[in-house]
C-alpha cells in the first residue's frame, strides 16, 4: 500500500520510534501519577468513590489521562512544530491531499493511546490489579470516540496555535485543570459544588465518566458517552476544516 496516508503513517511511526523521549509525557506521566494517587486511598470500597475500590477507580480513570495528554499536549506541539518549520507547507506543495496529514495523525493518536494504555495497564496489574470491565461495548465505544475526539482537539489546537512553544504552554494550561478535575484528581463527591459544576463542562470529565462508569459497573453513563460522541464529531469537523496544510 503506497497511498499518501500510508506513507505518512509509516514515516511518523518511524520517527516516533526513533525519538521515544518526545512521548515521555504521554507514556510516563499517567503511569507515575496513577501509581502515586492510586495508592493514596487504599483498596477498600469507599462511598466517595461511588462504592468502588479507590485503586481500581484510578486505574480506570488514568486510561483517559493518556488520551488527554495526547490530545492537549503531544499532538498540538507536534503539529505546531511541523507548521512552524514549514514541513506542512512542504507536504501541501508535494500534492498531499489536505486531509491526509490529520488522518495520519488520527492513526498515530490511536497507536500512541493504545501503546500508552497497554503500558499503564501492564504496570497497574501487578500493583493494584486491573478490574474486569462490566460493560465491554460501552467501554470500547467510549475509548474509541474519546480517542477520536481528543485527536481532533489536538489537530485543531495544532493548527490554531502559532508555535510549538505556544502549543506547549496552552496545552499544559488546558491539560492540568482537566486532569485534576476530570480524571486523575479527587473524586467528584469530595469536590465543592463550584468545582464539581466546573468539572462538568470539561470534555475529559465526560470521557472519564464514559470510561470509568461502565468499566467499574457504576451505571451506564449514556449522557457522558453522548457528549463525547458530539465532541468527536464537532472537533473532527473543525479539525478537518482548519487543516488546510
Amino acid at each position: 500500500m503506497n497511498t499518501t496516508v500510508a506513507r505518512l503513517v509509516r514515516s511518523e511511526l518511524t520517527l516516533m520510534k526513533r525519538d521515544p523521549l518526545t512521548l515521555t509525557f504521554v507514556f510516563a506521566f499517567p503511569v507515575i501519577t496513577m501509581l502515586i494517587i492510586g495508592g493514596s486511598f487504599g483498596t477498600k470500597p469507599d462511598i466517595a468513590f461511588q462504592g468502588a475500590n479507590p485503586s481500581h477507580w484510578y486505574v480506570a480513570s488514568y486510561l483517559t489521562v493518556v488520551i488527554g495528554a495526547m490530545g492537549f499536549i503531544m499532538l498540538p506541539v507536534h503539529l505546531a512544530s511541523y507548521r512552524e518549520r514549514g514541513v506542512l507547507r512542504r507536504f501541501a506543495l508535494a500534492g498531499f491531499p489536505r486531509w491526509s496529514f490529520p488522518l495520519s495523525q488520527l492513526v498515530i493518536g490511536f497507536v500512541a493511546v493504545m501503546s500508552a494504555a497497554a503500558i499503564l495497564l501492564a504496570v497497574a496489574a501487578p500493583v493494584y490489579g486491573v478490574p474486569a470491565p462490566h460493560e465491554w461495548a460501552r467501554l470500547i465505544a467510549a475509548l474509541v470516540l474519546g480517542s477520536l475526539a481528543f485527536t481532533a482537539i489536538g489537530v485543531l489546537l495544532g493548527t490554531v496555535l502559532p508555535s510549538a512553544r505556544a502549543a506547549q504552554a496552552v496545552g499544559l494550561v488546558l491539560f492540568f485543570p482537566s486532569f485534576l478535575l476530570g480524571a486523575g484528581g479527587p473524586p467528584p463527591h469530595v469536590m465543592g459544588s463550584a468545582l464539581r459544576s466546573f468539572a462538568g463542562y470539561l470534555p475529559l470529565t465526560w470521557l472519564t465518566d464514559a470510561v470509568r462508569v461502565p468499566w467499574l459497573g457504576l451505571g451506564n453513563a449514556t449522557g457522558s458517552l453522548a457528549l463525547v460522541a458530539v465532541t468527536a464529531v464537532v472537533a473532527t469537523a473543525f479539525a478537518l476544516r482548519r487543516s488546510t496544510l
Partner: protein
Amino acid sequence: MNNTDVVMVRDLRKSYGGRTVVDGLDLDVHAGEIVGLIGANGAGKTTTVECIQGLRRPDSGTLRVFGLDPATQADELRPMIGSQLQDSSLPDRLRVSEAVHLFGSGARGDGDHLLEEFGLAALRRSAFASLSGGERQRLFLVLALLNRPRLVVLDELTQGLDPSARRGVWSAVDRLRHDGVSVLLVTHELDEAEALCDRVVAMRAGRVLDSGTPADLVDRHARNAIVRFTLSESRRESLHLTDLRGVHEVLTDGDRVTIRGDRTSIAYVGEALVRSGSIPVDLAVDVPDLEDALLELLDRSSYEVTHLSN
C-alpha cells in the same frame, strides 16, 4: 494562453492588511524556459510564486498554470509542479532515503536515480539534521524533482551556501533545461540569475520594472564600463583619453586614472595604450553585469516614483 505557455499571469494583485505586495503583475513562463524573478527584498517575488503554487489566493487578476487556476484547482496542479521552498524544513530525524520515499509517489528507481545524480547516494541513511546546508538544498531539489514535474519553482535556491555548493546546485538546475523542464527561479542572487536564466523579470514593489534576457537588461540599463590604471601625467597626455570613442568621463587622482564609458570604450582605450607602448601593469576593467542593471533600474524607478508623487 497558447500551448507553450506553462505559466500565464495577468494583472495579479495581492495585499496583506492594506499593504499592496503584488500590484498588477504580468508574467509568462514558456515550456522549457528558466525564468528568474529578481528584485530587492519585499519586491513581491515570493508572494507571486506562492499564488502560482496555489498557496495564496490572489485578490484579483488572472492566473493559469498549465491552463489550470491554482486558486481552485491546486489539487490537480500540484503533482505537475515541483517546489523548493524558502524557509522550509523536514523532521530532524527523517533520513534521506525516507524523505525520498515519503514524497515520491512514483517508482522507487526515480528517487534512487536522483540521489545518485545529485551526489546524495552515500547519504541515504543520514538524518536530515546531520546534512550540511548544501546537502539539504540538494535534497530539496531531489524532492522537488520526484514525480517528474513539468514546472519547478525554486525560491532562494542557494541562500547561505558556500561557493562550491552553489556551483553544484547551479549545474543541477542547468541539467533541468536539457530535460525540457520549465523553471521559475526566485532569487536576489544576481550572479545566479545571470548564470542560469534564459529570461529575468525585475520587480519592485509588486510591479515588473523590465524583463528580458540578462544580456538585454544589462544592455538597456547598465551600459557603462570602467577602466582603471596607473600612468604618469606626462605619458597619458599623448593618449588624448577624453577624445577616444565611447569615453564619457576621465577622472584622475595623481597617477591613478579612471575612465567611464560605454563598453566599446574598453577596446579604444586598450588600443591607445598598446599603440603608445604604455601598457600599465595594474590595468583593470569593470564590465557591467546584471547587478548593475538592477541597481540602475531600482534607482530610476525610485526616482520616478518620487517625482511622480510630487
